[in-house]
């Protein structure tokens, strides 16, 4: 009885004490936060080139002059983007449109790919002569030629042997004739040749080096190095062309260099690694070693800002293509006069 009362008292006092403590801490933290966020962040200026927002009905010159170009199909929930350095064409996968949209390098709409095959495309990449599309809803990877003609598909949820659990991002290594597919649902990366013949699987679920927790996107650089967005491990993992782990960087948090919700990755000519983040709504750039260099963008809807950025690609010409899914567009940007190229 006495014990119970005593316990209660201790509990009450304990609670009051902790509440007082907490109020102090909250005040203290708010102050710290205010001070820290007031400082100049290491934001890098970008030049906004254009927004790709959807298919336009490209009528005659006079009609356009009179009424302006009309957008017929808007990007709704775009996720994947890939630029073809040979032709300059831009391919966009929107999960709400059952086809991949093809745009000319100037952003004007040119073609629909896979209108009769795709259900909900999410990842897209190109080789010398082919277009590869991952469809998470169908559980398949589709292969088209550059004219948009269907060649073949593989995977699917209905077949006896389940190939993919949820294929999302994919990347082509043209030189080594390899196709990498991130299977987000199975927590691994599956490797195929460019005809869709299975070669091997990299990794399994886990938090160790070479293991994944919801990998959603991948990129291959010139040396065949593989960059994997390992989203719920809050990091990027890098592998060599043989699939051997090289390094990792990133953790959760909201300081520069953290990756609370990484979604897309791309590598520029200098080997710098660009990572989009759908929690911070910006793009961070890291050195090849994984050191944070700078970032660009903030949350918002004006040009150069992002809401839920997804995949990213960088052209040979230095143009950066960022899927800005919450703003229903792909932003085309360029870094202003390049600084720190020797980092």
């Amino acid at each position: 009885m006495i014990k119970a009362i005593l316990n209660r008292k201790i509990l009450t006092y304990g609670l009051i004490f902790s509440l007082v403590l907490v109020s102090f801490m909250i005040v203290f933290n708010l102050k710290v936060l205010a001070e820290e966020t007031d400082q100049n962040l290491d934001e890098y200026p970008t030049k906004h080139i254009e927004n790709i927002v959807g298919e336009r009905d490209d009528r005659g010159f006079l009609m356009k002059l009179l009424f302006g170009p009309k957008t017929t199909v808007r990007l709704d929930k775009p996720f994947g983007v890939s630029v073809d350095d040979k032709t300059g064409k831009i391919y966009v996968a929107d999960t709400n449109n059952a086809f991949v949209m093809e745009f000319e390098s100037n952003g004007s709409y040119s073609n629909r790919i896979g209108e009769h095959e795709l259900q909900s495309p999410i990842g897209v990449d190109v080789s010398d002569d082919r277009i590869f599309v991952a469809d998470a809803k169908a559980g398949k990877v589709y292969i088209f030629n550059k004219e948009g003609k269907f060649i073949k598909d593989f995977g699917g949820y209905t077949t006896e042997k389940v190939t993919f659990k949820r294929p999302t991002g994919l990347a082509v290594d043209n030189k080594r004739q390899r196709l990498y597919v991130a299977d987000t649902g199975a927590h691994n990366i599956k490797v195929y040749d460019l005809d869709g013949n299975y070669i091997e699987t990299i990794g399994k679920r886990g938090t160790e080096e070479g293991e994944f927790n919801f990998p959603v996107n991948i990129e291959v650089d010139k040396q065949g190095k593989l960059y994997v967005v390992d989203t719920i491990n809050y990091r990027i993992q890098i592998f060599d062309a043989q699939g051997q782990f090289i390094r990792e960087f990133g953790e959760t948090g909201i300081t520069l260099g953290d990756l609370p919700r990484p979604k897309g990755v791309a590598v520029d000519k200098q080997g710098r690694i660009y990572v989009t983040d759908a929690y911070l709504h910006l793009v961070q750039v890291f050195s090849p070693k994984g050191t944070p260099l700078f970032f660009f963008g903030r949350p918002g809807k004006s040009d150069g800002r992002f809401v839920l950025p997804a995949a990213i690609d960088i052209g040979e010409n230095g143009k950066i293509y960022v899927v800005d899914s919450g703003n229903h567009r792909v932003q085309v940007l360029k870094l202003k006069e390049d600084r720190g190229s020797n980092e």
Partner: protein
Amino acid sequence: MRKTSVIVVSILVVALFTMPAFADIQNSEHDFTASSTATRENTGGYTDLKDNTTTTCSPCHVPHNASKNTLLFQTSYNDAETLTAYNTGDTFSAETKMCMSCHDGTIAINTSTKDYMTADGTSGGTKLVENLGTSLTNDHPVGSSVTLPSSANTNFNSPSLVDAQLGGQVTCGSCHDPHNTTNGSFLETAKDGLCLDCHNK
């Protein structure tokens, strides 16, 4: 029962809010893990997320770790700019964006094939969350700034079961509570009372 849950919740809130402070002295991420998983297990659709050593809570409750000698971003939660959502001029709440950061078709579904109801509770109406996402023209509006009830809009009750207006708008969290698994689909309240809590027809 109620009391203990209040205490548990306040302790959790305390834990959440004091992280940056403790981070200066301790390894905050481990702390966060330990204090959270010990008390509140998420048994719904998140079994997947807590496999292995990944914590259940940190995907949504991103730790604000101030101990690192780097600068904090202004989080997306301070987003001042408005975004065009269901209707022009509407805004998405930070919470909605947080949900969408996984429910984009990669980590989790952004489309659903379930059966839906009309606002009066009869079946066969609008596909409620067929296309979870940013363009909600064919779904239930989120980010709508409609205040409930308003003199201009007599179609609404004053809601008592759901959090109708987190920050003055309908969010994913108006109908869902990501910690509550008792009603299925992480719903705030049982499905049959949910719609009529806000709608009166």
